[in-house]
């Protein structure tokens, strides 16, 4: 999974680079320039500077095309917010520390581990869970169903989501690319054979083959 690659920082919009730009760089600029520019720079910096949030916060998230409001704490993860506050229970909580992929959710087009993503950081972003995926014959869920790429099914939402994100990026994956694309997910029942078959079948179906 590419969620934590530096190259994706620009897409995700909450990167280490942004953090540096927002704080020390802005301060340094203020020293070097005149009063007027400083004020503008400071105002700009204030927008991107890290804010201290505390207590209970009312937030609105764009989930599967709908605006959903709820109350969270700054520490509330995207996963717990989806599951415990919005009843979007497709993504599952399994390891709760970004090892197993069961919580995989697509944020602004990029698959992320929602168990280690803060809900407050997802405001204004497009959040997609597998509940919004096409369940027809051209969709990933259908391929998992037909190829029995699931048993107990608790890892399945993560695999289906990672698979969808992979195919959106690479509609023509080889078996090895599918393996690598799904290596951020763990299944305990051992359904990998069905999962791999399903991913390749879904790639075909999505192309209308």
């Amino acid at each position: 999974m590419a969620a934590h690659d530096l190259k994706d920082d620009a897409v995700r919009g909450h990167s280490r680079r942004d953090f540096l730009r927002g704080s020390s760089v802005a301060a340094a600029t203020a020293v070097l320039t005149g009063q007027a520019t400083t004020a503008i720079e400071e105002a700009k910096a204030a927008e991107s500077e890290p804010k201290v949030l505390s207590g209970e916060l009312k937030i609105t998230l764009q989930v599967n095309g709908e605006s959903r409001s709820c109350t969270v704490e700054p520490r509330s993860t995207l996963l717990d917010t989806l599951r415990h506050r919005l009843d979007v229970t497709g993504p599952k909580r399994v390891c709760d520390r970004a090892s197993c992929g069961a919580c995989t959710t697509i944020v602004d087009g990029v698959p992320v581990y929602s168990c280690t993503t803060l809900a407050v950081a997802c405001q204004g972003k497009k959040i997609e869970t597998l509940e919004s995926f096409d369940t027809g014959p051209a969709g990933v869920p259908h391929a998992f169903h037909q190829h029995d790429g699931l048993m107990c099914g608790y890892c399945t939402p993560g695999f289906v989501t990672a698979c969808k994100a992979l195919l959106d990026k690479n509609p023509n994956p080889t078996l090895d690319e599918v393996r690598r694309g799904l290596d951020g997910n763990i299944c305990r029942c051992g359904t990998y054979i069905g999962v791999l078959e399903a991913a390749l079948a879904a790639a075909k179906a999505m192309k209308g083959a």
Partner: protein
Amino acid sequence: MAAWPKEPRLIGTKVPRLDGLAKASGKAKYPSDVRPEGTLFGVVLYSPHANATVKSIDTAAAEKMPGVKGIVVIAGQGKKLRFQGDDIAIVAAETEEQARDAVRAIKVDYEVLPHCVTESQSMDEKAPQVFDGGNVRKARAIVKGKPEEALEKADVVVEGTYSLPVITHVCLEPHGLTAQAEGSSKITAWASTQAVTVVAGELAGSFNISPADVTVLTEVMGGGFGSKFGADIWGRTAAELSKKCGGRPVKVFLDRAQEHLAAGNRPSATGHVKLGASKDGKLVAMIAETYGTGGVRGGSNFPLPYVYDLKNSSRAHAEVSVNAGGARAMRAPGHPQGCAIMEAALDDLAAKLGMDPVEIRVKNLAEVDNVRGGRQGETINRTPMYEAQLKLGAELIGWRDKYKPRGENGKGVVKRGLGVALHQWGGGGAADKQVSCTINPDGSVEIKSATQDIGTGARTILAMITAEVLGLKPTDIKSNIGNSTFPPGQSSGGSTTTPSMSPPCLAAATQARAAFFNKIAPALSTDAETLSLKDGQVWVNGEPTMSWKDACRKLGMASISETGKFADGLSSVGVGGCQFAEVEVDTETGVVRVKKIVAIQDSGLIIDKLTWESQVYGGVIGGLNYGLFEERVMDPTTGVMLNPDMELYKLAGASDIPEIIVRAYETEEMKNRGVIGVGEPPTIATAAAIANAVANAIGVRVPDWPMSPRNVLNALASKEGKA
């Protein structure tokens, strides 16, 4: 005498599971997904110490925390905490975040006591005696024949110590349930369990009410593997908290660390084995001294000798207690351990004799190894079946072309090797389960039973059987399970669900069909005997006459409902299988990669070939995990588990999965036996076959599982005299 249809349309075909699309689209509601109105979140406080006494516990500050609605103390003052992860208290609060804060605010004063967390620590003469009756309980040896004498006369003897570590279940959905109490008289629970009826009984017991007043719901569930048979202290406390909080639902699911620590594990196994044979490779005697730990609960014994015919044997097992979570049944309890140790010793003996591993196995099968046939009193000799399986497996792995004797796998750094192992299991059914089948005037059909689908496809199998009898499609059947108030159903354990539930399901559907025929025959101006069902049509004298739906309308206002019971002749018990593994070992890094596995398995009559194959693939991949990765690591100094997570507790990912060839050994003789379960057998031999392939590749036995780089490099070093 009951019998399966002779020419089935559905049974034995590949039918995708009924709930597959719901699961694959995130719409299926697991017990941990359910959040009834007003739900409070429960969080468990558990012991950070391996051995301690609670000197005092103060919840006053926690009770005043925001959102906290109730606290139940499980281990009060003076109570012993016997392992890291042992329960102390559960807090219920409006949000999970608030419940976690309150858990941190509970003040516990511990008297920390000395601990033993590993077998060697516990077995040391100077070890603190931390368990009543001593840390080690040794059972008397079970002796058959004259093993000492026979071993002395043996032409060749191997002696070795083999060991498998404790591993944990790692159910992806944690243990837990959401409980809603209605006063003191009724409870509803959404439980992640493999036994709805057991959970109902347990909750009823703790509330002192009738199990009929408890409804346990398990629509789907996220894995159990033998560790989820009860409500547990967590579920019982959730119910208690719900009662305490005025009937608000309380949701308690464990965090991942406590899952590893407290929710069950597979015991370790160590065996010191002496195995002797005559020159021709025929086993003459085995003497084995074994031990293992099931933590604070015991249960580490395992079958040994295993599979092979030994006229002379002695086996003594010692149960070692350690300060770690209690063992629970795990997928074929005891068998993977017994299989690994037996098959390793046998392979070492074959290597010493310079004998082909397949040949020595065939040579040592019992002349007669009878298991049950299709009916009471009938038997089948398993030995020719094993022989046929070995022949087929050897062909599929390419044994004849690829096999080289141990240590003769080239001079390169990366070496290839082949290994083989056999296993056996029961997998029979319970005779006291029931299924109801209802045919409604609108044409809908519903079957009900208080069993559940642990992931094997139980729901789909019941629908297939019903659809087979009624001439419908499996998707036409509402297969309603996972509810403790339904007719008594089987727990999902021991590979017994399908053999227990299929016979009463066939009976229910057959009885319902007969009642249906009797009811509609007059409306069709014919006799019931002239009617049959096929392709969604009612046939009269072999001619399609009326659609199923139209015929059902003739029922008027009254549905037909029949309850089926178990009948002899539809299921059996006792299976065997063999597995072959091909591996590649990097002798510089110690990294083992499995390249190919062949699994041959019999399980009588197969209902759904698709989910059957998934179970066998899954069993093999589980075995690959035991073979290569899994290991609970305890720190002797601090007494804590070092890998209670999912990154250092390793499990296979997509890139670790080799080519896997699965074949059903499904002869007419096997089909005639009826249904036998398959959840467990195919996970038994894999780790043994992998280890034998590693030894074959590198020329030295890696005696300790898993086949991790550390264990492989240690074995290579000992071969070079560097250990």
